[in-house]
């Protein structure tokens, strides 16, 4: 266990979020975690802080303040100019040892998934990966991290009773960010930097993948196709339907594996999470690994030819029928009305 030190009681802030600003404005997961962290912090009677490492990070710091951060722990330093997992691990772990947060959250982004296991290992604490819910248990006060377990067949509630901090990574899109408040003010702390390990990776050049249409995670309407859609030609009808409804198309693992949709459209535990106003899920059975990515949707309509398919348990409206036939009818009807 960690020993107390002279910094521990400075401006108590026990819920921390890692500020992952790569692809900022598209990648909103840090803002979503600040909102969730703030709710957890208020239950614990404390504040939410964001750790921001890098060079020229001012604009991200200000965005996090506008979206609810109470405290910013920042290092604006040329040595941290590119995301480097070893350097970031060294800095974040040393700051945890100084300030002793209770909870430390990060987005389950490519970098969050690389960074957090290393920090957890360094601090000899637990980490729940790819969480789909985070709560404080009102009776015990425990921080309950819900994560898919046993290959995703179960959702497990994980607690870390002894070691601190309690660390979790969370999928983008699970929580809702707070609105931008330009009047917000926060405490800014520049903790000392530890001796940094030598940089082993040199970033030669960055190339950004071309953005495809509207982001799936921000879409108000999402049409998802599963294995039951049956064929590439049938799957293309999902795009027609999405076009008519001003939405985006998502896919389950078998649909991606069949080549009907790209990996970037995969929803679920190993893909994206969405929270649209309307989600229509067609020819999907409702496996937990998939539904982990659609739990935040406001209204879910499911189409499946098997009336006992688990997806109907989650749907607000269920249609028992053939995927292709229902798709064709919907497109025809919308074309007639719009």
């Amino acid at each position, binding site marked *: 266990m960690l020993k107390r030190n002279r*910094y521990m009681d*400075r*401006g108590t802030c026990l819920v921390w979020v890692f500020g992952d600003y790569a692809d900022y*404005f598209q990648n909103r997961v840090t803002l979503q975690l600040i909102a969730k962290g703030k709710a957890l912090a208020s239950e614990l009677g404390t504040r939410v802080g964001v750790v921001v490492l890098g060079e020229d990070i*001012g*604009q991200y*710091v*200000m*965005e996090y*303040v*506008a979206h609810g951060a109470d405290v*910013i722990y920042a290092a*604006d330093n040329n040595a941290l100019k590119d995301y480097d997992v070893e350097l970031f691990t060294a800095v974040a772990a040393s700051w945890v040892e*100084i300030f002793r947060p209770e909870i430390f959250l990060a987005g389950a982004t490519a970098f969050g998934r690389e960074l957090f296991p290393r920090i957890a290992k360094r601090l000899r604490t637990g980490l729940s990966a790819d969480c789909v819910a985070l709560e404080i248990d009102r009776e015990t006060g425990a921080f309950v991290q819900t994560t898919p377990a046993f290959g995703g067949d179960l959702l497990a509630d994980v607690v870390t009773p002894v070691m601190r901090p309690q660390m979790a990574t969370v999928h983008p899109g699970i929580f809702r960010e707070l609105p*931008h*408040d*330009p*009047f*917000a*003010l*926060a*405490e*800014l*702390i*520049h*903790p*000392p*930097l*530890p001796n940094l390990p030598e940089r082993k990776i040199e970033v030669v050049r960055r190339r950004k993948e071309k953005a495809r249409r509207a982001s799936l995670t921000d879409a108000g309407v999402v049409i998802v196709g599963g294995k039951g859609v049956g064929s590439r030609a049938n799957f293309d009808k999902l795009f027609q339907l999405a076009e008519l409804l001003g939405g985006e198309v998502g896919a389950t693992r078998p649909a991606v594996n069949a080549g009907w949709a790209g990996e970037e459209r995969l929803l679920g535990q190993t893909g994206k999470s969405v929270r649209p106003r309307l989600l229509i899920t067609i020819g999907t059975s409702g496996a937990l690994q998939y539904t982990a990515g659609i739990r935040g949707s406001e209204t879910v309509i499911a189409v499946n030819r098997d009336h006992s398919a688990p997806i109907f348990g989650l749907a607000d409206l269920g249609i028992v029928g053939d995927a292709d036939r229902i798709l064709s009818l919907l497109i025809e009807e919308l074309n007639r009305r719009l």
Partner: protein
Amino acid sequence: MEGIRSGAVSAHHNYMISGMLRPGFLVGDPGSAKGFYLLADFLLPGENTPRISGRFFDERGDMLLELTWNRLMLDPADCLYRPTPYGFHLSKSSGEIILETTTRRFPNGYITSFSGRLYDEKGVLKLDQEGSSARLVGNDSIMLTAPYQGCFGKEKKNA
């Protein structure tokens, strides 16, 4: 390891000074009739031009100018105030830069940085150039988390 430095930060506009963001700061007393001061005022949402005031001297302690909210009010040494697309530029008649401000605009906010060297009425360095940014010398600055409400020396005299 060096110590912890802390302050406040605004969601809307900050000054980058001594390697930290600050929503506003004050060095010296704008209410004094003669002494050095530098006031980088707190901006509220809706305001997008930083308000800088100050009474600046040269390294011998001779007065150069007095600026109130970005306007040259006293100019005994024939200094030059020049607006730039990103802020303003104050220089001596010789062309030597006294202070330059640069405001960067982001989609949701602004950060203003300084460059130059400022001295007080005793010729003591108060703001120094460090690499591409500026650093306050000494520990006598006050952080502002609301717009400055005090008066300026001349107003006090007239009141």
